[in-house]
């Protein structure tokens, strides 16, 4: 998972939220429950205190020792459960303590200062006889109904360990449960992110298929939120194709519209032998070149935006072979073709036709009758990562001296004026090869003539 990714963002925010929210909720629950447990403990102490007072009332001037207390632990020595009855403010009178207290006594919140006062009850947390923490509640009350009955302090103590242990146990279980829940939430978030983002990787794959030419549109079932994106992408691809098609048509129309009058001008001027005719001839030729040049540029600009075009090589080669063998029928040119039918060019059919057509036409024009075309898939290397195909075109003509080969690529350059042609063919080839980031190598063929090696992007078959 990359840091700068949707998956990471979703996962990180969900994790942060879980890490903050779970402990807060845990603390709230923990404090509510521990308060509840302590409240229960306190009300039990309060109950014992009331029972202690009522059991001690005799109606006389002295309390009696209470016997019927509901807590048996008052009778077990150092049990942590104690009670004590003693006269208020050191007045005269008997003092009673529970058997559990043996010979000890309980510190009086009334005398030591209470931490909490509730009506006539006073609360204090103290240390017991064995040093264990105790909570003491003490009630100031009389033992008779009449006026001036002696006032006594009735105290009951319970071990704070008792609710403490319950609270600790609960806290441990709570922490464990919340930790497990946190982990489960994180795992669920992770899965959720993966599942939710899967359509995006589907789109990525679909677009890559379109770029590779394996598909022409984005197909497949997408979730409702992604579907508009799919529709828009497909519309974009279609409109892209429309624009190119329109541009092509316009370019073709322009060509037709301009070239016919230009042909008329050229031929009219050719008829006359005047300086004006010569000038018209020269300028018409210049205009023709300019038109071709800008038509090529327009075609290439239109093509730069095309996506996902693939062209099987063999049908293009066969079409050119038929046409060229017919065009050069007088010379009896034979074009020997060696090309796997699975070979596929990553690009426009028209571009491949221009590339191979111009090279084959040149080879046919200059050959003594034999032209060879060989097309193969080449392995990727450092200079050409990805898939490439190599087309080699050779002829048995006179060839081109090494020094002149570079000049062949220049627009309007014709090495030999005796053969018909515009001098544009090779420069179109050069421009096209460059636009496909391919390569064109010219060398001497073993057949005697020129050998042109064309490297072009291919599609893995």
């Amino acid at each position, binding site marked *: 998972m990359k840091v700068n990714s949707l998956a990471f963002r979703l996962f990180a925010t969900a994790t942060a939220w879980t890490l903050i929210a779970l402990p807060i909720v845990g603390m709230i629950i923990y404090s509510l429950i521990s308060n509840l447990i302590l409240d229960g403990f306190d009300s039990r102490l309060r109950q014992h205190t009331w029972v202690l007072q009522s059991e001690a009332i005799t109606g006389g001037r002295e309390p009696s020792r209470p016997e019927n207390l509901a807590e048996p632990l008052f009778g077990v020595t150092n049990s942590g459960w104690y009670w004590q009855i003693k006269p208020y403010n050191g007045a005269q009178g008997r003092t009673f303590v529970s058997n559990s207290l043996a010979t000890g006594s309980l510190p009086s919140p009334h005398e030591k200062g209470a931490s909490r006062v509730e009506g006539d009850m006073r609360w204090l947390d103290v240390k017991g006889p064995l040093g264990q923490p105790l909570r003491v509640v003490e009630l100031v009350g009389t033992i008779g109904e009449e006026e001036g009955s002696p006032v006594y302090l009735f105290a009951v103590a319970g071990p704070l360990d008792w609710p403490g242990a319950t609270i600790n146990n609960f806290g441990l279980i709570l922490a464990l449960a919340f930790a497990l829940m946190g982990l489960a939430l994180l795992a669920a978030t992770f899965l959720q992110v993966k599942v939710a983002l899967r359509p995006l990787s589907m789109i990525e794959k679909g677009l890559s298929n379109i770029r590779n030419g394996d598909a022409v549109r984005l197909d497949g079932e997408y979730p409702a939120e992604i579907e508009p994106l799919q529709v828009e992408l497909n519309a974009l691809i279609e409109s892209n194709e429309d624009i190119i098609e329109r541009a092509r048509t316009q370019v073709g129309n322009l060509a037709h519209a301009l070239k*016919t009058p*230009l*042909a008329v001008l050229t031929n*009219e001027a050719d008829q006359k032998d005047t300086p004006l005719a010569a000038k018209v001839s020269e300028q*018409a030729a210049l205009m023709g070149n300019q038109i071709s040049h800008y038509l090529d540029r327009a075609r290439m600009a239109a093509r730069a935006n095309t996506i996902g075009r693939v062209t099987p090589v063999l049908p293009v080669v066969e079409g050119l072979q*038929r*046409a060229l063998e017919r*065009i050069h*029928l007088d010379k009896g040119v034979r074009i020997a073709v060696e090309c796997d039918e699975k070979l596929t060019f990553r690009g426009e059919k028209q571009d491949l036709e221009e590339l191979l057509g111009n090279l084959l036409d040149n080879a046919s024009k200059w050959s003594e009758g034999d032209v060879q075309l060989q097309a193969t898939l080449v392995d990727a290397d450092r200079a050409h990562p990805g898939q490439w195909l190599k087309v080699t075109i050779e002829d048995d003509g006179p060839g081109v001296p090494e020094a002149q080969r570079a000049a062949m690529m220049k627009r309007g350059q014709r090495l030999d004026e005796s053969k018909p042609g*515009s001098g544009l063919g090779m420069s179109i080839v050069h421009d096209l090869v460059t636009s496909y980031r391919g390569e064109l190598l010219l060398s001497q063929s073993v057949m005697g003539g020129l050998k042109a090696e064309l490297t072009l992007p291919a599609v893995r078959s």
Partner: protein
Amino acid sequence: MRALVVEDDPDLNRQLVTALEDADYVVDTATDGEEGCFLGETEPYDIVILDLGLPQMDGLTVLEQWRRGDRKMPVIILTARDRWSDKVAGMDAGADDYLAKPFHMEELLARVRAQVRRAAGHAKSEIECGPVRLDTKSGRVTNDGQVVKLTSHEYRLVSYLMHHKGRVVSRTELVEHMYDQDFDRDSNTIEVFVGRLRKKIPANLIRTVRGLGYCLSEEDEG
């Protein structure tokens, strides 16, 4: 030799007709696809110049219709669309050659000559028959190296016979290939031209085959 020019641009059409007539072709012309198609289907032409962008019926359709109807005359396509895809489509439709606009008339005429020769089965630009030699490039006829002066009609006659040497050519066929469509086919001026031609080149080269026509050949059956 009889040529058909199908081109909708009136100026270019006129230029083509003039150039072909100057080269001693008899030229019919059409300015739309339908008319061109009809002429090509009904008249015997030795060469057709066909523009692809035509009103009413485009050139490729016209060409395909001709080829489907087994019309075999050589056709040179003329078009502004000079991409190889267009050329391949044109050749696949049955064209014999392809010329992109703008072009020089000289190049067109060279291709016309080449197609006419090719259709008659001659590989070289010079056709020989005994001492007589026809240079299709210059349009010159020589007899034993001496230039033979010919009128336009005589040239068309000897050119057609030379292109089809060794074959018996009927009078009707000669009329069809020497005159345009409006010519009166019953005329017997052909005999007059043959008679004149026999005085300019060795007379025994042109044999009269009774009831069939004429045959130009070097075998002397005298």
